[in-house]
């Protein structure tokens, strides 16, 4: 059914989402792009239409805002076949430790908002009996680290949410895919010194997403080495873990 399904992309101006949108459009999918920034959204949509000639709609929406979320869901005259959620905010951990408003925004952007909107879309897809929900979570959610635990804990919540949703949707025709990209060269990581062997480009993440969507994989690590790294990190005893700088 996902052959030429309508694809809804949440957080559509992120680098991963942009790369994914090009892939989907190249495969002939119609798209609905959702993000806050109307200008960038329109530029991205124009690019996709010119390159691939397909239908591209846009919705300006702040997913952190309940009314805005509701308006988005109401505006969907056709329920999409595939939903890709690429919403995320790394944020500055140190700043967020002092600024509760930022902390709340990190938690809301990475967990609350995506969970609420995907939960509602899942209900509708279950009613129809088909659909694919793809959530971009993070390896950072596998253990809270001193350097980014606000982001990490929110992603942990999102990962657990996707896991539970997947279990609930099993047998109801709706698939839920969790993507854990590891390091990716994007706006989020600009200026960070990332180790090349562990770092993927947005196109690599996109290839993994589309592949998972087709093959029916539940949890995707874009670079398999991350599965091993996170296994080791999870196995470290707390007494050791709290002393290592990660």
């Amino acid at each position: 059914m996902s052959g030429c399904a309508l694809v809804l992309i949440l957080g559509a101006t992120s680098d991963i989402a942009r790369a994914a949108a090009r892939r989907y459009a190249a495969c002939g999918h119609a798209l609905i792009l959702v993000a806050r920034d109307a200008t960038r959204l329109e530029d991205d949509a124009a690019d996709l239409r010119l390159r691939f000639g397909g239908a591209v709609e846009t919705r300006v929406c702040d997913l952190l805002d309940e009314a805005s979320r509701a308006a988005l869901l109401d505006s969907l005259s056709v329920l999409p076949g595939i939903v890709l959620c690429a919403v995320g905010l790394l944020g500055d951990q140190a700043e967020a430790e002092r600024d509760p408003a930022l902390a709340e925004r990190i938690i809301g952007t990475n967990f609350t908002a995506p969970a609420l909107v995907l939960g509602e879309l899942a209900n509708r897809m279950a009613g129809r009996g088909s659909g694919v929900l793809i959530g971009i979570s993070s390896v950072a959610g596998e253990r809270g680290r001193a350097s980014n635990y606000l982001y990490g804990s929110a992603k942990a919540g999102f990962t657990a949410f996707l896991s539970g949703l997947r279990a609930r949707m099993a047998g109801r025709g709706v698939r839920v895919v969790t993507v854990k990209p590891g390091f990716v060269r994007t706006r989020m990581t600009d200026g960070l010194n990332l180790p090349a062997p562990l770092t993927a480009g947005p196109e690599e993440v996109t290839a993994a997403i589309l592949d998972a969507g087709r093959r029916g994989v539940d949890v995707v690590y874009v670079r398999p080495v991350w599965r091993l790294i996170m296994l080791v990190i999870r196995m470290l005893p707390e007494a050791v873990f709290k002393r290592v700088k990660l």
Partner: protein
Amino acid sequence: MRLSGWGRHPWADGALLAVRTGGDVTRRLRPAASLIARGNGRAYGDAALNPQGMLSMLPMDRLLAFDPATGLLTCEAGVTLADILAVFGPRGWFPVVTPGTKFVTIGGAIAADVHGKNHHRDGGFGAHVRSLDLALADGRVVTCGPGREPELFAATLGGMGLTGVILRASFRLRPIETAWIRQETRRAATLDDALALFEQSGDRSYSVAWIDALAGGASLGRSVLMLGEHAVASDLPAGLRAAPLVSGRRGTLRVPCDFPGCALNRHSVAAFNEAYYRLAVPGTRLVDLERFFYPLDALLDWNRLYGRRGFVQYQCVVPRAAAAGGLRRLLTATAASGLASFLAVLKLLGPQGAGLLSFPLDGYTLALDFPATAPVFALFRELDAIVADHGGRLYLAKDARMDAEALRRGYPELDRFLAARQAWGARSIFHSLQSRRLGI
């Protein structure tokens, strides 16, 4: 990050900051900053190097609008001609002006006011730009074009990124019926023959010559001219007429490693040149667009042929009236040096365009590639004197070594350019290794 231009000489170590939107660019324009925009790294020398900061424009790669009634395309500065060819070629559109590689960005094409094999008829890339958006030093974004802020536009065309950061541009594509070129090959046994052939071929859409820069004496300047016209559907054999805009997809090869520095030596190049000249069969045939315009793009990373030390290109133009004498002296000095230029290209250019620092002028351009070695730099200084004597100048997009004096002598509008740079506040922020070397 260690970066160089296409010639892999010189290198600079500095931060390359990716920008995705105009907002990203203006946020980087802080008063104490020193920056230069960088596209796809196809300028040969140090024009897009600045150890204090470079903006990678490549993520700004959105196509924004296209009007099939006029061929006017609007896109962001990081879009490459390769993108445009891939998207619009099959729909029957082609850039009005294209340089010898499709791997340049639109921002780079405007900043260098690149020219192609049709400069004698159609002018440079900038002649087909309707307007562009430029982020100025103070963070404002100004739209300029031939009819709007024309002085800023003229300074930006060929201005090597030194007036601001080009964010987006609108420019024309030309309609094409097929993805093929009718190429006529002609041999010229001497320099005079080559110039005569160019003069006779002024009505041809495209013309360019490969020239044997090692040949001296009676063979000085022997060349193979390639003339081209866009093929129309009726030019194609029946087998190609069904899909005239689909060209034969050819594979690419990649140079897998740095060649030893000595691979391109006097003897290997002389043997190649002899074979090339002999094997260039005069006559007319169909070649696909990509092969005609971008023969070297099929060999990815061909800059590695010159080994680790890199290479430098000497591209100069000599006014038409002085061309025969000037080119003869340039080629004689080159042949006498015994240094081997693997790629040597001769081309007729048309009148100068609007760009204050645009390279083309009514005359002949000669381009020679050499490994970046001490004897080569000595030869270049000798060539500089000949170019200056004949009222010519050097191409900033290829340059890695000319001095401030050569720039001043070659570019009579330099003071106007500097005044514009001053007036728009660009002098405080936009610098490259090249601008510092040239003192502009």
